[in-house]
């Protein structure tokens, strides 16, 4: 990949390329370090969070993802394949069942997005830019490690990204239908998963003994991811508590870390974190008062190390109690529902889980998302929604009008923020978010005051 590029160039150019690479890698490590340091500064940081912060440090600062995913190099695990995935429609159950390890590659680095800038059209979203930047430029070994990459055809940018990525690595496209309701599209999706299953079997099997994905292995991996989902749901429940016990930016890091960890290890750590947080709830050890404005961070996903918006919101004195991004609450929310142990039922259930409840705006009609947002606003007693749009993410922006309309009926203010991964606009955003949070705070205090007067 990179070697090929550098081989074609004169020694001088290669040297320059290397310099540039080092420069970017240094910057990436620095910005990741800053975010992590900020998180660790918090005196109320739950002890259980250190595992997740550590994952991020290993991947982005120390660049030791290999040790993280394949800890025992000398055992049989060292020839396990690593499969990169994008979006949340790739069934990790199948990857685990085939004996490979999935890592989610959606990029969040400003530095990588700068590299990607040169390779894609200007209006592409920074997620795609960063992902392409990472893949083309070997900033961290995570992207080089993947033996194959699965790209679902979700939005336009991701779809074309798959094509671009194939210059650098082996790409399997996974066709996601855009209309969920029709029987035809669901059947087609199921067929796609059967094809993926076959590909995985071929890919991970030894040369002559095409190792099949067995029923038992699939069942085990469904259970393994199921328990991760159970823990993610526990965190989700805990964050509903009237006074928060964990900051949104911390909880989101914890979920985000699932991308780079094996499900089993992650679940163990998450169980610990949840136990700790539940204890906090019992003891009444809240990190901020009940009067803190509660924010729902909607739409685009903050992906580490781009922690700009979550940090800003919480610095301004609000707390993110929920988010609906595909790197956050939605990532591990919907479970696979099995009723029997036949291969058919497992495949049908997996197909259903990855398609039907997904509220990615690349689906149309996507009314389900509005229901989901309404339900979340109610469950988490949301005071305001920050509608976070990454530049170039047209589909999320499209849905803003509908979201604003339904939230107006519920009397929940929505603030739209459009930004990318650069830190240029941070002061401007700070002012806007500050004003929004202050408005919410006043509103909340007033309503609480009238409530107390009434009783």
């Amino acid at each position: 990949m990179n070697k090929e590029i550098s081989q074609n160039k004169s020694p001088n150019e290669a040297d320059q390329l290397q310099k540039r690479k080092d420069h970017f890698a240094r910057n990436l490590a620095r910005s990741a370090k800053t975010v992590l340091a900020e998180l660790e500064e918090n005196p109320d940081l739950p002890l259980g969070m250190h595992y997740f912060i550590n994952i991020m440090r290993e991947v982005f600062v120390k660049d030791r993802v290999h040790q993280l995913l394949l800890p025992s190099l000398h055992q049989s695990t060292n020839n396990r394949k690593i499969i990169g995935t994008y979006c949340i429609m790739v069934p990790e159950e199948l990857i685990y069942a085939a004996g490979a390890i999935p890592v989610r590659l959606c990029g969040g680095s400003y530095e990588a997005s700068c590299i990607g800038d040169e390779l894609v059209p200007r209006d592409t979203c920074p997620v795609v830019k960063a992902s392409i930047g990472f893949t083309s430029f070997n900033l961290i070994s995570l992207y080089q490690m993947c033996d194959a990459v699965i790209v679902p055809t979700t939005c336009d940018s991701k779809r074309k990204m798959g094509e671009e990525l194939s210059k650098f690595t082996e790409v399997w496209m996974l066709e996601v239908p855009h209309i969920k309701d029709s029987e035809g599209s669901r059947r087609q999706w199921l067929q796609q998963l059967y094809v993926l299953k076959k590909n995985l079997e071929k890919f991970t099997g030894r040369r002559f003994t095409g190792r099949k994905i067995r029923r038992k292995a699939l069942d085990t991996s469904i259970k393994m991811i199921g328990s991760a989902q159970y823990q993610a749901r526990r965190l989700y429940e805990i964050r509903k508590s009237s006074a928060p016990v964990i900051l949104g930016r911390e909880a989101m890091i914890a979920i985000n870390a699932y991308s780079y960890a094996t499900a089993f290890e992650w679940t163990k750590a998450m169980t610990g974190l949840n136990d700790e947080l539940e204890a906090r709830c019992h003891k009444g050890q809240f990190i901020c008062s009940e009067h803190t404005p509660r924010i729902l961070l909607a739409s685009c996903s903050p992906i580490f190390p781009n922690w700009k918006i979550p940090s800003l919101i919480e610095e301004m004195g609000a707390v993110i109690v929920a988010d609906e991004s595909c790197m956050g609450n939605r990532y591990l929310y919907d479970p696979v529902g099995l009723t029997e142990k036949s291969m058919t039922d497992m495949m049908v259930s997996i197909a259903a889980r990855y398609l039907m409840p997904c509220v990615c705006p690349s689906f149309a009609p996507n009314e389900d998302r509005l229901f989901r947002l309404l339900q979340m606003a109610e469950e988490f007693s949301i005071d305001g929604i920050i509608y976070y749009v990454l530049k170039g993410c047209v589909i999320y922006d499209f849905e803003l009008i509908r979201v604003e309309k339904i939230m107006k009926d519920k009397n929940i203010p929505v603030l739209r923020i459009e930004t990318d991964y650069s830190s240029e606009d941070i002061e401007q955003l700070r002012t806007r978010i500050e004003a929004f949070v202050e408005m919410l705070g006043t509103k909340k205090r007033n309503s609480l005051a009238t409530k107390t007067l009434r009783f």
Partner: protein
Amino acid sequence: MTVTNLRWMALIISFFVLILGGLIGIDLGGFLPTYACPYVGQTRGGVCFLFRLQFILGVGSWEAFKALGEHLLYFSILVVLIGRAWCGWICPFGFVQDVLDLIRRKFHIGYIRFPERLRANLRCIKWIFFFIALLIPLWVAYPLFAPSVAGDLRQPFCSLCPGKYILPLVIGDPDSVAVDFKSATTITMTILGLTFSTLTIIGALLKRRFWCPYCPMGLLLSWYKKISFIKLKKDCQKCTMCEVCYNVCPVEIQQVFKERENEDVTFTDCTLCLRCVEYCPEDGALRATFLGKTIYKSTSKGFFSRQHIIPAVPEEKHQKAALEHTNE
């Protein structure tokens, strides 16, 4: 105890009561809204309403119609009480199909799902059966033409119904599985009936509750769904449309997860087996109500315990008890 286990218990008990109850002198009458097949002989514990309906219509006298009115009244009361839970929780033929389904599961063979189009086309079958059961007996009573054919068509639906052949066979009475050579009519009817029976046995081994969508009794019962006491309800806002309820549904009802407006999701084919409520992963998204009072509702914890991800949680026992009470 899960609802599934409870339902199995109810099915087993009612199978013994309805099919073998006669041995200990149980006779529940001729208006039962379920396949209490009289062809099992003296051991029967009651009689299927469809049998009695055809019989009475076939007599055709004024007295007979009066008796029919009385039977219809009792039948209606029973159906209003628990709706199509008769199908999911009591029907002996449903039990036989569930046992066949269990065998399929034990061998880890996947189920078959018909395409929507085919299912829509097959929907007319139960209506055909229903009109056979309703109109042919009238012809038998007033044989204006071809009286010899009409004479051999007593209980026309029964001779087509797979229950007539399979249920006696289940309790060890193979005599019923035979072609009746009395006349050309009986030969045709019994051959058709045996074909349906074979199809149902094979079908039930491959598809969950194979016969239920074609059952005319189910059609009769579904007319009461608006006024029946038991209802399946959904909180549309809580639903994530994850499709789990569709995948677990033995009669494959899609509308439950697709519904976005109405609270009532008791659809025509629904046998109220409550598997969808059991397997729904959202707290309170689906629930079963009896006279408007919630007797069972979905929980996230319940879902994960059924997936064997967390140890089973002790569930509200009184809810289950309430449900069992209404069933027995």
